């Protein structure tokens, strides 16, 4: 671990490494000062390493996604594109389907020749200014769906109008579709290395790729020694397209190239390390990786915070730790200038892109907030910036560094020196009423002087000084420090001028009077500090209380409505009111996202806004302005994600700046959560209503069914019995007809009852182990009176495996199939029941020797009430086959109809899949043999 962090180049060390780190393990005597360590690596682990039982998120994310190979180079010209095409050609030779997504040949004939063997996705050409720009055609590539795509330049920024602003996002979507990607990138584009590279190249890198992209990628360094690269450059073999190289004529200096090369090699090594750790963690093999390290970085409004965040990211990576960026909201931050706020917001955003969780903690002081956060999250390491504030500021506000080191046991504190790239005015906003405070001070001091002038002859000059405390304290209480200092000064001067000897001069004779002046100044300072702090704490408190009250009221209002329109109206009104933004709520209606509510009501969405909303809905991720997707939209859309899936999206828009400032983001997240909950409740209520209605309908049907069963069966039984009695006593043709029709009536009735049971869901399959020999025997017994002279041939080997079946359903199926075969084939012809073990299970077929099915008849055969014309010789409702189909489906069996291939006749077959076979206990285990 320490090896990764050994500072190998001066620039790396200066710009990125924590300057020193201090740690005081628990239960050791308090050190008098910070202990210095050379390397971060020495302070990581005091917990015993233990493999984490769950699979690494990186591994699980890999499933179903295409793999990514990144060819990493130190600088343009090392031959990344060349290597990518060579790799692609190798894949092509092994039979893989490889296409070129986009390759920048820069007119090099050599590169073009290499690209020639590949199918190339035609790039989208977009007019940009005077020339046209060729961009990767993402949709065409996805539609082509190759196995591998070669895509040059991972760090490329897409021209506006694409789906994503960055090419790495395009690649992410391509991999999401299961396509492997080979791509190229130069080391200076790696996000977390931005400040290091900027440090020695003295340029700002605009095209960056988040580190997370590298996490699950295979990284191969395309390496060329600096001397050779410079030689290639001088030979004119390198196309200088990169902004970095254009901007800096000294880019290709040997020292620069060596430093970049070193960075590239180290970054690749780090990814390999990380992947090995992931592997160890997922397999539970030993290994000394750090477990349970939780890292917190404290972010303020200083401009140096970006370096701080990047340093924290590198540290977190090296430790394999989760990390959290904490911003403490103190009374002071409430009065920050807009510039300082923007800096803070940008820092938080950067931390999010680098993979940190963001937390904003309200607290009276930075120290208190950090301490609460560290205890709550059980953090083991804290990264903070070394303040460049004046000693005076630290004296008043306390140094966070010293306080942390003093107060926290067993937490490693890493201090990173801030680099000041720019300095904005971080003084509190000038209060408009400061001048009124001065005026007030002047007026009260004058008044006091007049008053003192009147009472002085009676009391003597020595108690006058106490009177001057009154204007000072009044000003301090009402207007804060500056006016009260002015008041104390004015009071001291007035006292001196009018009441101290020599009178009407500013000279002081008596040293005792000097003390009076000093006391006045101290009283002014202390009083203003105290009241000022009380006031500001009250302000923050009031704001928090307001937000909490608003949230509670929001929840209550939402709970009171139970319709979608009302919920949408309340959500839009409240979000708009609390965050001062336009708000819109969209919900799915008839398969389309439509506006359910808006504030203001006349909001209109452009097609691109709709696209962003659809994206947020489909992917369950934020989209639109200030997100990573469809940033051209004026709106920012957030999904209402619930346990029932995404139920809608909420969009916020503002005329200027961020729709939701970073300090209100927590509130916004809570509001979204509440809105999602309300929608989940609505959906659950609707489902419940539907369920109740369905249940009532089912109950009605069941009642109907049982009354049919009871009320019809009894008379039917009498009819059948009477017909049979007549047939035995009278022996007339009419009596015989009556008997056979009564039997048919009974069969139709049975089928109707079964069909109704099936339709109402009253018949759930109760599967049990069944011997097909048994099942057929039972069905044949039931049918023996209706076979009408057909000869039944049973061809079911006794050695077939047992199958799973509902005995009653299977019996009905067999009775119907055999009855059907008997009905549609001439008397005297054989009906065969054939059972076979097949490769995929067991098949049971009923085969007749009738005319067979007409062409196309098999498809419609199983529809309810379908009768196949042409074969219908004896009539019937056709219900029987629908029941066969219904019962077979309920049991999970396949059912087929067709004509036999070995002669005339139809064949109906049931297929038991392998999963429904029971190979049964061995005969000897049950005591048979």
């Amino acid at each position, binding site marked *: 671990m320490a090896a990764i962090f050994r500072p190998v180049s001066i620039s790396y060390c200066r710009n990125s490494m924590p300057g020193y780190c201090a740690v005081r393990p628990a239960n050791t005597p308090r050190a008098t000062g910070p202990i210095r360590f050379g390397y971060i690596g020495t302070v990581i682990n005091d917990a015993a390493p233990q493999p984490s039982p769950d699979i690494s998120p990186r591994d699980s994310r890999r499933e179903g996604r295409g793999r990514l190979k990144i060819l990493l180079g130190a600088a343009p010209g090392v031959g990344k594109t060349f290597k990518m095409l060579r790799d692609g050609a190798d894949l092509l030779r092994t039979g893989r389907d490889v296409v070129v997504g986009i390759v920048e040949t820069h007119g090099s004939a050599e590169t073009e020749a290499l690209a020639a063997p590949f199918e190339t996705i035609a790039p989208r050409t977009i007019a940009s200014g005077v020339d046209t720009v060729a961009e990767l055609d993402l949709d065409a590539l996805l539609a082509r769906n190759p196995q591998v795509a070669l895509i040059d330049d991972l760090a490329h920024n897409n021209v506006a109008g694409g789906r994503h602003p960055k090419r790495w996002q395009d690649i992410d979507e391509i991999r999401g579709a299961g396509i492997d990607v080979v791509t190229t990138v130069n080391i200076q584009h790696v996000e977390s290395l931005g400040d290091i590279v900027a440090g020695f190249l003295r340029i700002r890198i605009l095209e960056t790729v988040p580190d997370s992209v590298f996490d699950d990628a295979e990284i191969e360094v395309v390496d060329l020694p600096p001397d050779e690269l410079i030689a290639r450059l001088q030979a004119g073999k390198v196309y200088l397209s990169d902004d970095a190289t254009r901007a800096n004529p000294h880019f290709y200096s040997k020292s620069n190239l060596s430093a970049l090369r070193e960075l590239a090699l180290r970054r690749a090594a780090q990814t390999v390390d990380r992947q090995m750790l992931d592997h160890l963690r997922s397999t539970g093999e030993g290994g000394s990786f750090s477990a349970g390290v939780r890292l917190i970085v404290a972010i303020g409004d200083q401009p140096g915070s970006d370096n701080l965040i990047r340093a924290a990211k590198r540290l977190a990576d090296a430790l394999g730790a989760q990390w959290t960026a904490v911003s403490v909201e103190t009374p002071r931050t409430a009065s920050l200038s807009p510039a300082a706020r923007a800096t803070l917001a940008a820092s938080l955003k950067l931390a999010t892109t680098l993979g940190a969780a963001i937390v904003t903690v309200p607290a009276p002081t930075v120290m208190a907030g950090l301490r609460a956060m560290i205890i709550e999250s059980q953090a083991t390491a804290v990264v903070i910036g070394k303040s460049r504030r004046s000693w005076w500021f630290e004296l008043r506000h306390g140094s966070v560094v010293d306080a942390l080191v003093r107060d926290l046991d067993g937490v490693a504190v890493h201090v990173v020196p801030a680099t000041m790239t720019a300095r904005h005015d971080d003084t509190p906003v000038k209060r408009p009423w400061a001048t009124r405070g001065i005026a007030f001070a002047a007026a009260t001091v004058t008044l006091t002087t007049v008053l003192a002038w009147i009472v002085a002859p009676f009391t003597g000059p020595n108690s006058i000084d106490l009177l001057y405390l009154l204007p000072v304290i009044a000003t301090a209480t009402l207007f804060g420090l500056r006016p009260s200092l002015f008041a104390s000064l004015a009071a001291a001067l007035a006292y001196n001028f009018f009441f101290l000897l020599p009178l009407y001069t500013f000279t002081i004779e008596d040293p005792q009077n000097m003390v009076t002046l000093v006391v006045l100044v101290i009283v002014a300072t202390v009083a203003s500090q105290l009241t000022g702090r009380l006031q500001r704490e009250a302000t923050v408190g009031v704001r928090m209380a307001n937000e909490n009250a608003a949230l509670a009221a929001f929840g209550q209002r939402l709970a009171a409505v139970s319709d979608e329109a009302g919920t949408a109206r309340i959500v839009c009104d409240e979000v708009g009111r609390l965050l001062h933004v336009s708000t819109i709520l969209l919900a799915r209606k008839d398969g389309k996202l439509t506006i359910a509510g808006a504030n203001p009501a006349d909001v209109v969405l452009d097609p691109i806004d709709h696209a962003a909303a659809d994206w947020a809905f489909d992917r369950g991720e934020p989209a639109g302005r200030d997100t990573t997707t469809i940033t051209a939209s004026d709106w920012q859309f957030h999904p209402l994600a619930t346990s029932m899936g995404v139920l809608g999206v909420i969009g916020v828009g503002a005329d200027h700046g961020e729709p939701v400032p970073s300090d209100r983001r927590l509130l916004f997240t809570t509001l979204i959560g509440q809105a999602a909950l309300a929608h989940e409740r609505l959906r659950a209520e609707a489902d419940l209503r539907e369920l109740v209605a369905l249940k009532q309908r089912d109950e009605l049907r069941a009642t109907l069914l049982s009354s049919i069963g009871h009320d019809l069966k009894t008379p039917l*039984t009498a009819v059948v019995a009477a017909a*049979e009695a007549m047939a035995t006593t009278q022996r007339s043709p009419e009596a015989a007809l009556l008997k056979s029709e009564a039997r048919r009536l009974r069969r139709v009735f049975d089928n109707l009852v079964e069909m109704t049971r099936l339709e109402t869901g009253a018949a759930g399959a109760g599967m*049990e182990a069944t011997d097909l*020999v048994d099942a057929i025997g039972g069905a044949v017994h039931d049918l023996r009176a209706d076979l009408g002279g057909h000869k039944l041939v049973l061809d079911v080997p006794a050695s077939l495996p047992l199958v799973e079946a509902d005995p009653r359903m299977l019996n009905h199926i067999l009775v119907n199939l055999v009855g059907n075969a008997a009905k549609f084939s001439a008397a005297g012809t054989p009906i065969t029941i054939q059972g076979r073990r097949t490769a995929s299970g067991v098949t049971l077929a009923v085969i007749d020797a009738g005319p067979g099915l007409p062409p196309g008849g098999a498809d419609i055969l199983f529809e309810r009430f379908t009768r196949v014309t042409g074969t219908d010789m004896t009539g019937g409702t056709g219900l029987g086959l629908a029941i066969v189909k219904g019962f077979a489906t309920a049991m999970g069996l396949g059912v087929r109809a067709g004509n036999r291939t070995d002669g005339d006749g139809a064949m109906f077959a049931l297929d038991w899949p392998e999963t429904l076979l029971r190979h*049964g206990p061995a*005969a000897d285990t*049950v005591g048979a043999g």
Partner: protein
Amino acid sequence: MTAPLLIIDDEPAIRRLVRGALDRAGFAADEASTAADGLAAARRAGCELVLLDLGLPDRDGIELVPLIKAMDRAVIVLTARDTTAEKVSALDLGADDYVVKPFDTEELLARVRAALRRRGAGAGALVTAGAITIDAARHEVHRDGIAISLTRKEFALLAELARFPGRVITHTQLLRSVWGAGHTDDVEYLRVTVRSLRRKLEPDPAQPTLIRNEPGIGYRLMD
């Protein structure tokens, strides 16, 4: 003079038709239309077999099954409620057989004859079914006079079926008496053992005639 057969059914039409069919077959029968009347009639000496409808106006017919069995009468259940569970519970309560409405008259007569014959035969030492002779006391089974070797479980199952030849014995009853109370859900055991019994006893195991399956209910030994 009490007739040997008793029909308990609330539908006069059914009673009349069943009674007519029984008459023609040579069986004298009495009628009752309620559970109370039926119980009183069954109690009278001379009654041998009761045809019991389960849908009675004053009481659920299934409650009558054990009461009538306690009077040592054969019971054949007539039911319009043809759910499998109900048939099984009637059989488990001691009913000798069941017939589902609407029924075949011939089927009904056959069941009545079989039930009466079983009563006359009593629990003899020797049971004959087709070509098979089962001697429960001596643990021997013969086919056409030739001894057949069975495993302990196979014999126990066959003997259990042979205790009431022609009568449906439910899966639960068979499993409990052959494998024990812990195996009442292991229908698979039963299937495997029946299969091996058929292989030893039936002339054609693929078209069994000796041990017949009642789908979802049980097995009966054909007599």
